[in-house]
């Protein structure tokens, strides 16, 4: 029971025939996402902030041992609860049944950071599960900021994602959603261990705060290793653009807390938002300062060459495009490439991902065609007018 869209958007030419169900994803997902707006605190270094909490329903086994009937029931309970929330003027809840969505739709949701890769596949970290596992995602539109994954590793994973350093606002978002859901459902909770989760590393607050940082300055001055070592010693994990297990491309890194028990939500927030991230931001700005000082010409050359490649290449792999866009972004925020608009760069960070590329071109592409389409897109958006 997807909430009816009051005014369905008109479809572009070349769309598939109207599906019987209201289109879940066909409209709107070509546009950018709010977390790539390039606004907010420290947005020269911090791309986006994300807060996620894990919850499980009391009276049900975790996903690890839940039978299919349990999973279906958990899904139904959560879905009903989510679809009945009062969202306020102009908002609506988008619901996607992932077990019936197309692989392309699932990939687009991953690229927009609304679901994890495992959730797209329907798999647990153990490898158990598969595409037809009953599971879903709810997204509050139009902001696409707050979402809920149902039947991922935990029954519920609630998240909020915003542009810039805004962990406090993200935390307020998920806190609100958590309370709203809890008004109608009991969560598994233990007086000593707090909110119970399938993996003991999430137990307690169930809270994961993360920020996506752009650290090309530290990379170019050779200090990234040290910064990431420092971050590990601070009890943080650093990962690439798309989270767990992915390589960092374009020097985008996700920094997040690792402990969830023994520190309150407010204490975890203070550590990351007020102490650790500002410190890393300071290191990166310092490194950029050095690049713009005695190494200005070399730096300018590097970022201008990256732009040149994006403006003229005929074939681009995703990783290469990310790398180049990261350099161009550095050039833009440092004022070395005044002719390039930051929004354009941010838009491309998402648009060059495989599923989005297919949505933009409107057809299914082979990997070779993707490289070509990706280069076309970069030339068109960054080209000399």
């Amino acid at each position: 029971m997807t909430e009816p869209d009051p005014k369905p958007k008109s479809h572009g030419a070349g769309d598939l025939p109207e599906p019987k169900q209201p289109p879940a994803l066909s409209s709107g997902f070509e546009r950018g996402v709010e977390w790539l707006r390039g606004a907010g605190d420290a947005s020269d270094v911090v791309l986006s902030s994300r807060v996620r909490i894990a919850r499980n329903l009391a009276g049900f086994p975790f996903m690890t041992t839940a039978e299919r009937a349990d999973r279906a029931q958990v899904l139904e309970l959560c879905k009903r609860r989510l679809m009945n929330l009062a969202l306020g003027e102009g908002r609506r809840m988008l619901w996607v049944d992932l077990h019936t969505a197309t692989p392309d739709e699932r990939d687009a949701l991953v690229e927009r950071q609304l679901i994890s890769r495992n959730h797209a596949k329907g798999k647990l970290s153990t490898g158990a599960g598969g595409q037809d596992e009953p599971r879903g995602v709810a997204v509050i539109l139009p902001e696409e900021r707050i979402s809920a994954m149902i039947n991922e590793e935990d029954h519920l994973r609630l998240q909020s994602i915003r542009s810039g350093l805004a962990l406090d606002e993200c935390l307020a978002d998920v806190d609100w959603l958590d309370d709203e859901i809890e008004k109608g459902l009991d969560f598994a909770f233990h007086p000593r261990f707090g909110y119970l989760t399938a993996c003991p590393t999430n137990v307690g607050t169930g809270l994961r705060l993360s920020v996506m940082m752009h650290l090309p300055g530290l990379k170019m001055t050779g200090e990234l290793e040290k910064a990431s070592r420092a971050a590990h010693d601070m009890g943080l994990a650093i990962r690439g653009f798309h989270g767990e297990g992915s390589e960092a491309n374009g020097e985008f890194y996700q920094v997040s807390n690792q402990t969830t028990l023994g520190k309150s939500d407010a204490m975890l927030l203070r550590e990351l938002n007020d102490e650790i991230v500002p410190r890393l931001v300071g290191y990166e700005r310092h490194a950029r300062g050095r690049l713009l000082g005695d190494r200005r010409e070399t730096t300018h050359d590097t970022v201008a060459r990256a732009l040149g490649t994006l403006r003229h290449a005929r074939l681009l792999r995703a990783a290469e495009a990310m790398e180049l866009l990261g350099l161009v972004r550095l050039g833009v925020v440092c004022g070395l490439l005044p002719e390039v608009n930051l929004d354009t760069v941010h838009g491309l960070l998402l648009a060059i991902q495989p599923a989005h590329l297919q949505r933009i071109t409107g057809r299914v592409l082979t990997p070779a065609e993707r490289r070509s389409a990706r280069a076309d897109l970069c030339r068109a958006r960054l080209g000399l007018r």
Partner: protein
Amino acid sequence: MRCERCEREATIHEVIIHQGKTRERHLCESCAREAGLSSDPHMPISKLLSSFMLGPTAGPQSPGKPRPHQPAKSVVRCAGCGTTYAAFKETGLLGCPACYEAFSERLSPLIERAHEGGCHHVGKFPRRALRDCRSLNDRDRLEVLLGSIRERQERLESLRKALAKAVRDEDYERAAALRDELGRMTDLMEGAETE
């Protein structure tokens, strides 16, 4: 910036946040190596589990060799879902909420280690559930959420100790955060008793 131990350029800048205290170190490569600066990335739970279970001397398991079979002394099963501790060790995932109680003896030290010494939940409690218990004066369910009266007192006591330590260490930001937490938890715990 100079290395704090010798005259060379410091290339390793480390920030350690331990129990809320921030300490910085600036070292050159060789002094850092001497100081045994950790470059270990965050241990995934499975690795943590195996290193903890096998003890630090056992070392990493070579992937080709079959894992040494340790005969279970007594197989404990979670009454809620039938999961064994061995199954948890294998996957790093528990089977149901009741597993936390069923395996609490072996799980507690592991959890404490994974959370840098954290062993008691502090922070948010399910708000509506608490309100319900109070308005219905349901003491049993309240105990399920907040713990027994003795457990609640213990928890407040451990927060008070942490606060006193932060004050002693002159870590005022942490002390302020702990003071807020203590106030909130006191309201939560005592509100439970007076109603």
